[in-house]
């Protein structure tokens, strides 16, 4: 499953729709009509396609995506765990259900460079708040014996929704690729 590269949305118009809405819908009176016009179909078709993508789970949710920091949730910690591979799915599901956790993924280990195979994200209004939540998480889920590290964020260099650039579209050029020398 690592590096699943096949796009499972294959319908060409669905892909155009994904491209049109991935950065957000326009906040106008008839947003779906505006999108429909952009991709050359009707408003009803746009709505029906979005409903279908929601039903299939390709769209997990459709709505307001908040910016945590700006809303006062200034502390965010990525907590990484070194879980026995045999138990990682069970522990992952347990952690993923806790209300303070906003993401929970299994990822690969990298020999000699990275030992942790389970990642979760905890947001909070303060560092102390995040650490308190982590302590509760450890107690609730019985994680006392599992090695972990807490990686608080410092600077945020970028945050925005994913852009699923389609194959036919060219990539953003690397700015100043030749002149930007790194000391």
């Amino acid at each position, binding site marked *: 499953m690592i590096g699943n590269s096949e796009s499972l949305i294959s319908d060409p118009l669905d892909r155009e729709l994904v491209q049109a809405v991935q950065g957000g819908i326009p906040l106008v009176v008839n947003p779906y009509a505006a999108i429909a016009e952009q991709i050359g179909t009707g408003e009803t078709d746009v709505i029906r396609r979005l409903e279908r993508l929601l039903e299939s789970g390709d*769209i997990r949710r459709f709505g307001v995506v908040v*910016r*945590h920091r700006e809303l006062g949730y200034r502390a965010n910690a990525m907590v990484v765990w070194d879980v026995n591979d045999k138990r990682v799915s069970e522990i992952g599901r347990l952690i993923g259900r806790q209300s303070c956790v906003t993401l929970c993924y299994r990822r690969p280990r990298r020999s000699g460079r*990275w030992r942790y195979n389970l990642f979760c994200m905890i947001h909070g209004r303060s560092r102390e708040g995040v650490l308190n939540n982590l302590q509760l998480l450890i107690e609730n889920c019985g994680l006392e014996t599992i090695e972990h590290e807490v990686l608080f*964020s410092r600077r945020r260099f970028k945050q925005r929704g994913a852009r699923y650039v389609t194959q036919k579209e060219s*990539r953003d050029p*690397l700015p100043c690729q030749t002149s930007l020398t790194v000391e």
Partner: protein
Amino acid sequence: MAQKESILDRPLNELERRLLNDFQEGFPLTSRPFRTIAESVGCTEDEAMHTLQQLQSNQLISRVGPVFRPNRVGASTLAAMEVPAERLQVVADIVNGYGEVNHNYEREHQLNLWFVVTAANRDMLESILLEIEHTTGLEVIDLPMIEDFHINLGFPLQWL
């Protein structure tokens, strides 16, 4: 010139709080979604639309739209780098230069730069990581998701 009152200079009002909290999922897929919202929260269509526009222009929301299931629409990965402190801003700028990078954070760890890359497919993803390695002369550790355990229903906000 009188400064326009900013939404950020005062506590959020009830309408703003409801729009932020109650429509993280199930945003209406109707011809006039702001009218649907207005009916449910008890304001006018115009108020609902303008308040969301204002929340967006003040960057309290990043967008209104879909959150895709990871790796269903394209390929994505979490990448980590160990960057000498004095080069961090420059390397972060190089990483930010890619349209495929949507999150990029400094974190408290020996591996101090963490970013998410999303592309149409795995090959494009790998070529970006290689290019970053080549440009910076630093190793990029590629940590794609294997399994997702979280059901993303949004982020419940608690007001102070």
